[in-house]
C-alpha cells in the first residue's frame, strides 16, 4: 500500500501534519509495530500491509496533547474506536488528520502457525500466503490466516475520516455471538470450568488493558488506592475474576468490539468473550447498540427506559 505512505509523506512535507501515526516495518513482514513518524527519514520504515492489525486510535490520546496535527491511519473498525474516544473527549478531532485505510481482513502469524505451519522463516501477505519455512515453502489460505475478529467484521465503512485510501471489504462470515451462545448453553459447572481454565492462564501482564482503546483511564482503579484494589499484581492473591469482570464492566457500552484484547494476550485468553457477552446482553435487553458508530449517541449504561428488564431476567434465562 505504497499509496498510503506517499500520501502521508506528502502531508508531512507540506506541513499539514506534524507527525504520522502508522506502522513501522518489523524484522519480518508479519510483525509491524505502531509508530510515530516525524520526518521523511523516519518515513522510510513506514509500512502498511495486511499484517498491520494494531488499532492506532488509542495512541491519539497522547498525540492529541502534542503540538500540531497528527495524521493517523485507521482501518474501518479502528474508526469506531476513534469515534468512541471522540465522544468521551479523549482525543482532539481538530488535531487529527484521519486517513481511512483500506482493509480486507488482517492476518495473524498465530493463525498461520495454527494452520500447522512450523519453522516459519518468512511470509508474505498475498492471497494465498506464501510461507517460507525451515522445511520448505508452503501456502496458507488468506482466510485461514485471518484474525478471528475479522471473521465477524463490522463492515467496510469508516465512520470517521478525512480521506480514504484503498479498498475495504466486509470479511464477516461467522456469527459474532456464536461463541458466546455456545458458552451460554453450557451448564454452570461447565461454564465455571471453562473460565477457570482460561483465566488461570492470566499472568497479569496488563497487555489487554494497555491496548484497549476503551480502557484508557489515566490511572486504572487497579492501580489506585481508591478501591483498596491496588497492589495485587506483586502477590499471588491477584483476583483475575475480579479484574476481568470489572475491566469488562468498565468498558461495557463503550467497547466497540475491536478485539485487540484477545489479539495481544500472550496467553491466548479469549478476553473478547467478556465484552461480547455484554454487547449481546445490551443488544438483547436495551436494543442494538454499536459503540463508536455515532459519536453523539448516549451509551446504554448512561441511559435507561422506565420499563427496562429487571435483573431477575438473568435467573429466568432471558439474556440467553
Amino acid at each position: 500500500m505504497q499509496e498510503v505512505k506517499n500520501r502521508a509523506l506528502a502531508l508531512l512535507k507540506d506541513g499539514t501534519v506534524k507527525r504520522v501515526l502508522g506502522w513501522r516495518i518489523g524484522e519480518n513482514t508479519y510483525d509491524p509495530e505502531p509508530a510515530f513518524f516525524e520526518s521523511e527519514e523516519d518515513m522510510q520504515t513506514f509500512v502498511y500491509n495486511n499484517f498491520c492489525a494494531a488499532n492506532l486510535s488509542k495512541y491519539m490520546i497522547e498525540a492529541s496533547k502534542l503540538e500540531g496535527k497528527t495524521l493517523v491511519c485507521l482501518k474501518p473498525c479502528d474508526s469506531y474506536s476513534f469515534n468512541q474516544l471522540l465522544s468521551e473527549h479523549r482525543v482532539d478531532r481538530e488535531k487529527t488528520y484521519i486517513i481511512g485505510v483500506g482493509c480486507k481482513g488482517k492476518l495473524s502469524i498465530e493463525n498461520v502457525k495454527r494452520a500447522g505451519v512450523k519453522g516459519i522463516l518468512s511470509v508474505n501477505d498475498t492471497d494465498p500466503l506464501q510461507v517460507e519455512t525451515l522445511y520448505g515453502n508452503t501456502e496458507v489460505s488468506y482466510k485461514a490466516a485471518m484474525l478471528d475478529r475479522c471473521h465477524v467484521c463490522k463492515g467496510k465503512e469508516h465512520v470517521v475520516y478525512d480521506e480514504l485510501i484503498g479498498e475495504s471489504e466486509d470479511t464477516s462470515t461467522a456469527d459474532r455471538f456464536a461463541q458466546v451462545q455456545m458458552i451460554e448453553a453450557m451448564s454452570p459447572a461447565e461454564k465455571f470450568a471453562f473460565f477457570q481454565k482460561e483465566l488461570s492462564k492470566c499472568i497479569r501482564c496488563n497487555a489487554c488493558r494497555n491496548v484497549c482503546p476503551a480502557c484508557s483511564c489515566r490511572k486504572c482503579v487497579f492501580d489506585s488506592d481508591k478501591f483498596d484494589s491496588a497492589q495485587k499484581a506483586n502477590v499471588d492473591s491477584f483476583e483475575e475474576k475480579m479484574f476481568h469482570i470489572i475491566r469488562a464492566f468498565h468498558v461495557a457500552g463503550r467497547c466497540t468490539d475491536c478485539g485487540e484484547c484477545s489479539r495481544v494476550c500472550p496467553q491466548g485468553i479469549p478476553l473478547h468473550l467478556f465484552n461480547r457477552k455484554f454487547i449481546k446482553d445490551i443488544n438483547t435487553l436495551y436494543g442494538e447498540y454499536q459503540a463508536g458508530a455515532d459519536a453523539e449517541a448516549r451509551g446504554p449504561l448512561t441511559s435507561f427506559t422506565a420499563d427496562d428488564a429487571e435483573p431477575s431476567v438473568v435467573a429466568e434465562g432471558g439474556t440467553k
Partner: protein
Amino acid sequence: MSVNQEFRPKIVAFCCNWCSYAGADLAGSSRLSYPADVKIIRVPCSCRVNPMFILRAFEKGADGVILCGCHPGDCHYSTGNYYARRRMTLLFSMLDFMGVENGRTRVEWVSAAEGVKFSTVMNDFVEKIRSLGENVRLGDLRCKK
C-alpha cells in the same frame, strides 16, 4: 431445607437510604423478623453501589449480596435506580455467564412503606442462599486451580 440448617451464611444487603433502609426500619418497628445473617449497609441510592463492592463482598467471604432500592419510578433522585437496574442486570448476567450461581445476587425494590416485603424478601433470600450453601466459586476470585 434440612440439609443446610447448620450453615449460617454471610449476607450483605445494600439498602438505599430513602426507601429500602426505611423499609428495613419499618420491618424493625413492626417486629417482622428475618435471619440475623443479613447485615445492612446504608447507601444514599441503589445507584451508589459499585459492582466492585459486590465482588469485594464475595471475595471477603460473603455468601450472598442483595441490593434494595426504591421502586423504579420512585427513586428519591428520580433516576438512580434505573441506572442501578441496568448495571446489576449486566453484572448478574456476567456472573451467570462465568458459571457462578446467579441466585447469590439479587435486586429487590422495597419502598419505605413495605416493611412486610422487606422481611419477606430477606427471609426468602437467606433461604435461597442456605440452599446454595457456602460460596466457593466467587470466594476464590483468583481462578487458580
